[in-house]
């Protein structure tokens, strides 16, 4: 993206919310047509899961961006960095634990792979925040 840092906080929040909003809207819409056509349930379910996944408060997902922008708007950006790092790390750890439990219960390993990938950015954030404080 080349237009970095040009949008104001509310506008960027609207941008981040647009994706999941469409997902959830389509999920509700499709599920209502499920009684007529079975496949609607499948696609509605996929939209629901994708929308909820994007709303996770982990950067760089939409949920993470919403959280960051809210914090930056209400307080200031550097605190927002710290807040989103902590929340993101906590959420990613929680999800990884849940995914591991699911795998041990006999479920699919894919969620674990996805949640371990989600850990990457919060860990980077933690690293960077630490560096800036000492350096």
């Amino acid at each position, binding site marked *: 993206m080349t237009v*970095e*840092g040009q*949008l*104001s*906080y509310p506008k*960027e929040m609207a941008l981040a919310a647009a994706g999941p909003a469409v997902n959830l809207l389509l*999920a*509700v819409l*499709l*599920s*209502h047509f*499920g*009684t007529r056509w*079975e496949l*609607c*349930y*499948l*696609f*509605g*379910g*996929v939209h*629901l*899961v994708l929308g909820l996944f994007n709303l996770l408060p982990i*950067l*760089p997902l939409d949920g993470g*961006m919403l959280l*960051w922008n809210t914090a*930056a*708007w*209400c*307080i*200031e*950006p*550097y605190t*927002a*960095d710290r807040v*989103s*790092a902590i929340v993101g790390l906590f959420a990613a750890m929680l999800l990884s634990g849940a995914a591991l439990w*699911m795998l041990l*219960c*006999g*479920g*699919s*390993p*894919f969620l674990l792979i996805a949640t371990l990938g989600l850990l990457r*950015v919060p860990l*980077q*954030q933690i690293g*960077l*925040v630490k560096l800036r404080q000492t350096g």
Partner: protein
Amino acid sequence: MTRGKRVAPVSARPDPRAAAARAAAMARARSVRGTVRGSREEAQLQPKPRRRKSKFLVQLVVSATVLLCVVAAKITMPDITAKYSGEVLRLMGEETDFVAAFSAAGRAIGGEAAGEAIEELCIAVFGSDTVEISTTVDRTDAVYSADTTPERVEMQQQILGFDYVCPVEGELSSSFGYRDHPMAGQERFHYGLDLSAEEGAVIRAFADGTVLAVAESTELGKYVEVVHANGYTTLYAHCSRINASAGQSVKAGDPIAEVGSTGDATGNHLHFELCCDGTYLNPIYYVV
């Protein structure tokens, strides 16, 4: 509230433009003028584009090498790669029914039977303890099975493609499907038909074919297995006597055995199974 020039989140975009924007914002926040676009910042920015380019190149080379290796493996050793790709696909898809999971999610918000849908979702995602996916069906388990969902069962009528006769003149005492097992007292799947008849009543071959096996087991008693055209096999169990021998070719209606109650049977009947390539069919459609 700090509005004005906003700063991008630290981790998400580590590239020179973010660094410059961050530097500009920091300068403005501290009300320092004139040093932002100074030579020190520009000097710092220089090495980064070159490092990024070589990193990108390395990624490209590694990916291309991996791709070429996989393609080479597929061309030179197709059977081994097929085996491994089968393994991977099995690992990916076997434990979770993705279609059921997402459909259940959709149903949960659709409003129709939402509670059941959520339960279905949990089962689809986590798997169920009661469902067993068995790859081989032991011959002695084929008559009565405990707690397995019938994986290799086809309930719809198939067109056999050959002439057939009713194997024995008798009454239907137990049909294909779930039933209470008379011996064990719990519900099990019955993979064949039970036709009750007098002891010694003649059992005829269902159709033209070759006798595959003549054997005896604790559950089936004395049984005969005959293979027919198009991959169909029939089994006749609990016989008192078997008149055919393995390898003998028979015609439809040839007497091959006599009704009895050998094995795990409560009375004199013929336990008749019809199977096609390992899938159990419902014989009721062909036995009048």
